[in-house]
């Protein structure tokens, strides 16, 4: 896995183009955590790019690096034609109004001491958008469009709403500045299945209504498939596979993607559980394996995989895989 390589990048109508993104953290003397190690991807206007992988694979770090929190160690993040990594802090502040983010824990991402109405209104006040009446009309409209009663929002603080409602409020807050793109970092992972379905449907509706481009980061493959147009699979700071959503799940070519698909439990007690589990733990990003970073856990790994990092190679129909031994007969979903 491991993929570096840029064969999968496209040239037309990109909102975001990230190249050679590296994010490293210093964690003590001579200890560097290599969270993201040279990945490239792009997101077209109106597209939803899903990013999946295990906990610790660098997917959230990737989303945050796009926002420049913190600034990546190296690489470029070109958003609407401007490289965000080269901007001054005031330019960046302004650019960030166009890229918003929503997080996993919707209750703690809202200020507990303010009414949720104030939290949604605040970005407009900070940027001095419109008159007071215009701002309130806009906030009312956006709250209505996410299914929150504006009158109740004026009287209530985050703890008086459920998790699903707080996520709707966070989405409203992300929308008020009329962003081009929203980065959703595990936005439904803390919600029950019915509320999850409501929020996923809402995101699909808002994407159309407000002409949004989305990055959707999550560990649940079925959720990612549902919302995404294109999916990137990450492993230990690298990309292993990038493909149109339906195509990825129809013919997963990377051994890691196949293992991920096989390891999903089904809501059926009689389902076949005999399939092989992923062996071992995610290796340390402080000392990542040589060559393909997945070789320590891959059933197909050989000397080549230990020595040489595979590049993303086209498989046809916009499907790319970074593997020396791509899987010919992918897992079939029952």
């Amino acid at each position, binding site marked *: 896995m491991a993929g570096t390589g840029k064969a999968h990048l496209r040239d037309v109508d990109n909102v975001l183009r990230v190249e050679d993104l590296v994010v490293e953290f210093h964690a003590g003397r001579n200890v560097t955590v290599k969270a993201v190690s040279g990945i490239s991807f792009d997101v077209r206007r109106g597209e939803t790019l899903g990013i999946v992988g295990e906990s610790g694979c660098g997917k959230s770090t990737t989303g945050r690096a796009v926002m420049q929190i913190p600034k990546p160690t190296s690489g470029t993040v070109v958003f609407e034609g401007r490289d965000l990594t080269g901007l001054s802090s005031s330019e960046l502040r302004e650019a960030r109004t166009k890229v918003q983010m929503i997080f996993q824990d919707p209750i703690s991402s809202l200020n507990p001491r303010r009414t949720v109405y104030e939290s949604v209104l605040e970005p407009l006040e900070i940027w001095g958008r419109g008159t007071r009446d215009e701002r309130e009309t806009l906030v009312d409209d956006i709250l209505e469009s996410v299914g929150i009663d504006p009158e109740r929002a004026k009287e209530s603080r985050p703890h008086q709403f459920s998790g699903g409602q707080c996520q709707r409020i966070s989405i409203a807050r992300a929308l008020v500045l009329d962003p081009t793109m929203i980065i959703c970092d595990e936005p439904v992972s803390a919600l029950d299945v019915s509320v999850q379905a409501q929020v996923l449907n809402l995101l699909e509706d808002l994407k159309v209504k407000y002409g949004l481009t989305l990055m959707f980061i999550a560990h649940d493959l079925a959720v990612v498939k*549902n919302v995404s147009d294109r999916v990137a699979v990450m492993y230990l700071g690298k990309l292993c596979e990038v493909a149109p959503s339906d195509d990825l799940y129809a013919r997963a070519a990377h051994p890691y993607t196949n293992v991920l698909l096989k390891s999903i439990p089904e809501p059926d007690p009689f389902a076949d559980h005999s399939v092989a589990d992923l062996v071992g733990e995610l290796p340390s990003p402080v000392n990542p394996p040589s060559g393909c970073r997945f070789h320590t856990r891959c059933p197909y790994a050989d000397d080549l995989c230990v020595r040489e990092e595979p590049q993303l190679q086209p498989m046809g129909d916009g499907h790319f895989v970074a593997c020396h031994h791509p899987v010919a007969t992918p897992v079939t979903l029952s």
Partner: protein
Amino acid sequence: MPYTKALMKSIPKLTDPSHTRLASIPGRPPDLVHPPEGCRFAPRCAYARDKCRQEEPPLVQADHPDHLYACWYPVGSPEFQERDAELERTGGVAVGIAGAS
């Protein structure tokens, strides 16, 4: 019962194409200070009838051993199937659990 079925229906499935509209249960969990009379799920249930809004269903044994449920018109009952067919004809707004077995 319809609630269990609706929960299972709202889980995204890998076998469905991308951008499949998900079924979700309309409304919100009830006010626990003033819980609804009868079956507590009735106000959100597309299969609820008058009896559901008046009388709380007891927990009863299903055909399968160790399976208990509390519902007047469980999935598969004639009343359930009748309503299911109606929902199918009218576009199946509600819970979207048509085709349940």
